[in-house]
């Protein structure tokens, strides 16, 4: 065994052709390829800091194999700024003081982005539920919810 498998995927719009061992998680694969913005925390699906977007859906990269991402499109927090919806979220997090140590932020932004793409008029309770898989030890969540809500409201107005 010890065989490496070919992997071809798109990360933030850039095509990556590489190989991976069968047991490598997507999280490890991304970091090995320089995407250090994707953080590892619990590494077993609980904390959400490793969240990335795969084909439009938020997923936890620590419990996804690199192989499962073969042929897929991955968006990390670095790719967010290329999209208006992503930029707005980033700015809103800064404005609302939704970032303290920043460890949860990348995962939080990815969850928020995927959520707002599919849900256009969420209330604060729904936003709180949507981010329930992302743990934050610093902010108490209130400012994060407010930051996401502000973007949802703005999107509503600009329609």
């Amino acid at each position: 065994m010890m065989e490496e498998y070919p992997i071809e995927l798109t990360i933030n719009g850039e095509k990556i052709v590489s190989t991976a061992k069968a047991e490598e998680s997507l999280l490890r694969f991304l970091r090995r390829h320089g995407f250090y913005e994707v953080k590892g925390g619990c590494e077993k699906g609980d904390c959400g800091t490793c969240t990335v977007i795969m084909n439009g859906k938020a997923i936890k990269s620590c419990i996804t194999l690199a192989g499962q991402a073969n042929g897929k499109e991955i968006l990390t927090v670095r790719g967010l700024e290329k999209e208006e919806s992503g930029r707005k979220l980033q700015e809103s997090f800064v404005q609302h003081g939704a970032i303290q140590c920043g460890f949860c932020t990348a995962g939080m932004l990815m969850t928020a982005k995927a959520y707002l793409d599919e849900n256009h008029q969420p209330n604060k309770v729904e936003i709180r539920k949507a981010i329930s898989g992302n743990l934050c030890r610093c902010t108490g969540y209130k400012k994060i919810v407010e930051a996401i809500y502000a973007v949802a409201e703005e999107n509503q107005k600009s329609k």
Partner: protein
Amino acid sequence: MSTSRLLTQEFEYFAPHTLKEALDLLYKYKDEEVKILAGGTDLLVKMKTLDMKIDYLINLKEIPELKAVETNNQGLKIGATVPLSQLERREIIKEKYPALYEGIKSMAAIAIRNMATLPGNICNASPAGDTIPPLMVYEAQLRIVSKEGERLVPVEDFLRGVGETIIRKEELVSQVIIPAPPSNSGSAFSKKSRVKADIAKINLAIWLEREGKTCKDARIVLGSVFIKALRAKRAEGLLKGEMVSKELLTQVARQAAEEIKPIDDVRSTAEYRTTLARVMVEDTLKLAWERAGGELEG
């Protein structure tokens, strides 16, 4: 050795593009440590935290035949790899199978439901699996296929105990088949966990069929109280063919709570579970009866 951070063991990985290919692989490796991968939300956590020996891992998610959802007036056929988040977005699930809808919505956060599947939840065979009581009250069946043929098995008969099912190594679940519920029926799910979207202390689903003021048929299934989800058959018996009243529902709830065999575990004591079960069953009975179009006097 395994750590919680990395997968340390080595295995061969396959992502077949047809069902036939997957079945051939399972057949070829049936006498070795071969495992099916769907969403991986149970399996990969287990591989990281427990010592599990796996030589061959077969990912089903690249097989188009397993991604379809078919609906007709007979009911619903859900392909094995349809993610839970896709099911919860379907109007038909919300309207006709509210207990399943509520069960799915109670599970984990969206990033897990984007990967997780129904057969993954069933085959993992946790007594706390949240889609299991709903699927049991709707009398769902699993289509189990192998290179040599196929069989249909009710979810109820499929499960044997904690992590144990009747599936053989050369087989996989290709479809979950849920019959259409008759009109005048109603159902509901309820779950109590430590915190929201966590593993259940108790979960349960109830389905009732109404004829006027009488309960024609009833199914009550509780999870997390025994080595597998359990039907409260004597409680169901108290309801069937009877005029429904608030007193009757209280009596049925008490019977259901006595009938289950609660287990002490790290999440709660047996006594606490019995009391909790009675209250939860009563509330859920009322909701299911209302959804069946029934009224409650007294």
